[in-house]
């Protein structure tokens, strides 16, 4: 379970997150939606400490971190905390000098220090899971965007994280490649992976999410089941946002 309390993030003078409270149950898929600049990506990046929150607490798995102004969290604690998460990036960010297989193995071999052969077996299983067994020895430059993103998912899964974080995983993809990535994500959701997904894919949110969170201007405006948000929202801002997407 993830518990975020009163989370603030400030970049210089701009406050991007203004006190976020959010609970994410184990095995749930939570979709974060909202207009651009609303702070949804920043919130996601705070969850694995790619951004250090200015204030607030995050509880995840074995760790609970308390952030205070100008007090930095020790580096080894940051790494331990982060190792409970996996992240899938908008721009894939695969390691270009490694094959698909090596990308997935990298964390197992060099972070977890696991045996190379065992790591290879596990990485191959994961590539099969995302439908890319036949691309194991291809370099990222030889893969389509959709394939690269699926390798990205396998890479994140390899570390067996408590939670998978997705930062607009399909936004950089050609429309015809979006489906293959969403399909993999839906399967993971079904298998009970805990996932936090920042997305503009409302259909995915509607179908796969256990909870949808609408963020605007650094605060959570509303959260609920997809049905509550998409069909019965009582909030003017949510309605405006959804209407804009449909028009």
């Amino acid at each position, binding site marked *: 379970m993830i518990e975020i309390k009163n989370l603030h993030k400030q970049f210089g003078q701009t406050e991007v997150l203004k006190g976020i409270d959010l609970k994410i149950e184990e095995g749930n898929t939570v979709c974060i939606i909202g207009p651009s600049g609303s702070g949804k990506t920043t919130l996601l990046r705070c969850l*694995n400490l*790619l951004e250090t929150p200015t204030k607030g607490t995050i509880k995840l798995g074995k760790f609970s971190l308390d952030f205070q102004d100008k007090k930095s969290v020790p580096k080894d604690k940051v790494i331990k905390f*982060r190792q409970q998460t*996996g992240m899938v*990036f908008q721009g894939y960010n695969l390691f270009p000098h490694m094959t698909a297989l090596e990308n997935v193995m*990298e964390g197992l071999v*060099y972070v977890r220090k696991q045996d190379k052969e065992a790591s290879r077996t596990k990485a191959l299983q994961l590539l099969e899971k995302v439908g890319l067994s036949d691309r194991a020895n291809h*370099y990222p430059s030889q893969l389509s965007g959709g394939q690269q993103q699926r390798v990205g998912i396998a890479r*994140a899964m390899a570390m067996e994280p408590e939670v998978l974080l997705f930062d607009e995983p399909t936004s950089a993809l050609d429309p015809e490649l979006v489906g293959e990535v969403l399909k993999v994500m839906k399967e993971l959701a079904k298998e009970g992976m805990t996932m936090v997904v920042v997305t503009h894919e409302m259909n995915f949110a509607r179908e796969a999410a256990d909870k949808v969170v609408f963020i605007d201007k650094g605060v959570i405006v509303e959260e609920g089941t997809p049905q509550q948000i998409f069909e019965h929202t009582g909030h003017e801002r949510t309605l405006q946002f959804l209407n804009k997407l449909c028009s």
Partner: protein
Amino acid sequence: MFADERMDRIVDIIVNSFFPMLKAGVAFTVPLTLVSFFLGLLLALLTALARISGIKLLDAIARFYVWVVRGTPLLVQLFIIFYGLPSIGITISPLPAAIIGFTISVGAYNSEIIRAAILSISKGQWEAAYSIGMSYPQALKRIILPQATRVSVPPLANSFISLVKDTSLAATITVTEMFRVAQQITATTYEPLILYCLAGFIYLIFSTVLSNAQGQMEKRLDRYVTG
């Protein structure tokens, strides 16, 4: 008749000095270049890391070092090390003095190349490395430096070839490298044009071989970018 004699003499001199010079090249120029370059690269990497460390003191030290070394002639630096330092009790023999001088120079120039190469790798690569649980040194070693290496090979090769030629400056601090040998033979034969051209020719051979090696290395490092 006169022309023939002259021709014979020229051939004689070339034949008799080519091998001593090549030998000096292989015995001094090449090792001097290789050792200085690799020590210099280490120094350059440390300097580049100091520059991007975000630690103000390290950054300042690195900047100062690069500023001083780039702003003064290599010849002056060699003279300070070899002829200057003995007056404060530090005497270094010619070859080590040359290695120290070249290493310091290579370190300063190449630190900027390495720094630029590291900075050219997208932030997303660092983040991806961190996202699978890597520490800063791990990310640097496994993810960033391998990619930065590819970017930095052409400019580093440039600086390497410059160094091959700059080693001729070691002649001025009595290292018997190739150019010094050319000077010595000139002193006895009085044929500066022939011998200095010959020296230039041998430097040209060395740098051509090295350029080809660079091409090979680039090809190898480029294997993952060609789709």
